[in-house]
């Protein structure tokens, strides 16, 4: 969990910065970039699994923040707004044919490890392997499941906030998160015997 957890109380500070930026304080925008670019890059890289593409998306997110500053209204947490922009961009990015190809190849790669895993003794699953296996599983998840799980589990968003970021219902978020977590849980040593 990063120190820039979306659920942390520093969020008021983000809103203050955004309002200052809206009022013409460019340094406030710099500060928002400093605070959020790394967590966003981490999230977007887990969404598109391509660091260069994720960097471009981070750039695009902040470009939109910049251009939308006049219309920003502090009725939601800044991070919800920010991640909503990022999630929309990432999901659009994933619709490109090249990502479909990546997704399919992850499917092909992932099928074998998951079967192996079910048969492997727990003690051979060390932390690195575990992490790799979770990654393989995560690549196979549909984009919205990936986004929902990440926002809830890592960024600390409430389901209501995830729902806002993904533009779906809270009930849908509950299902998306659970489905994603269950799929990844198959790669953890605590699975059933």
């Amino acid at each position, binding site marked *: 969990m990063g120190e820039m957890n979306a659920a942390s109380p520093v969020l008021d500070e983000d809103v203050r910065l955004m309002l200052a930026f809206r009022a013409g304080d460019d340094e406030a925008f710099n500060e928002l970039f400093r605070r959020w*670019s790394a967590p966003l890059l981490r999230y977007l890289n887990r969404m598109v699994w391509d660091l260069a593409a994720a960097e471009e998306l981070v750039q695009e997110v902040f470009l*939109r923040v910049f251009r939308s500053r006049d219309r920003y209204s502090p009725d939601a947490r800044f991070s919800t707004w920010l991640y*909503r922009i990022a999630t929309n961009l990432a*999901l659009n990015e994933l619709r490109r044919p090249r990502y479909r190809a990546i997704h399919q190849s992850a499917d092909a790669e992932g099928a074998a490890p998951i079967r192996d895993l079910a048969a492997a003794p727990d003690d051979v699953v060390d932390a690195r392997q575990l*992490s790799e296996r979770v990654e393989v599983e995560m690549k196979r998840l549909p984009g919205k499941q990936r986004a929902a799980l990440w926002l809830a*589990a890592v960024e600390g968003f409430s389901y209501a906030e995830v729902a806002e970021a993904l533009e779906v219902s809270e009930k849908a978020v509950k*299902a998306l998160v*659970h489905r994603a977590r269950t799929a990844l*849980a198959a790669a953890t040593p605590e699975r059933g015997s």
Partner: protein
Amino acid sequence: MPNIFFACESYEADLSALIDGELAPPRAAEVGEHLSACAGCSRYFAALSGVDRVLAATAMPEVPAGLRSRLQEQIESIPEREEAARERHAAPRARRRLIRPAIGAAFALAASAVVYLAVVSEPTVDTGSEAPVAAVVEEAQVALVREPSGEEAVSDEAVELAEPVAVVVEEAQVALVREPSGEEAASDEAVELAEPVAAVVEKAQVALVREPSGEEAASDEAVELAEPVAAVVEKAQVALVREPSGEEAVSDEAVELAEPVAVVDGASELEAASDEELGVLLELEVIQDLDVIANLEMLEQLMLVGEGAS
């Protein structure tokens, strides 16, 4: 995902929500008590929690120094671009505000029309008149997709592209407001104004009656024609299916797999429940300042006009 943890069915779905602190306190207590007594659920819960630990351990990447400067370059190019766009469009702000709410309505209506046509397009059907509408919708959708950030998303480009359709809807609405008593009251003016859009829907409905078999009736050309709006319809379809039978009914994977035929299925959904469907389509719009109720009413009125014209 099969339940490889032998968790109890009545608790399984809530274990993830418990981790996220999303269960109401009484249910959280109930599930917690069950966990202490049930080995299967307990294993499952541990596995689910393990996922979070792995994800949370994801290293925070270093943001390349060049990223901020590239962003700055883009930012500095904004004023020129936007100034140029403003001159090109030369549309007063007030006018834009009128047009924007109409875009969602026009887009939803025209999208449904295109989808109808996708299903029923046959050599016997003259599909000439929908082309302008379809082209506008297609381009507008592309522009909207490029601007996915929500309210801010309606780019000037999108507004400009959607304008030909939006104006029709907007003016038809104005005409209808003058004649508010229903189908019979629709003025000639309103009928005339709405005709370019309504005719498409009407023709498609007629053709649909002739070819009720749906999927089989869709030609390759028709599917190609409707492809630009497939994403919208796909989402609408999912949303509709969720309504009666719960969101678990349609997996994301299934939706993805079904995409090539989503247009066809979406069309029959449209036929079945137009108001709800159009409402869903409107919700799907990334236009946040849309007055959904007003636009639904507008759409209903336009439909009446379309029928009145036939």
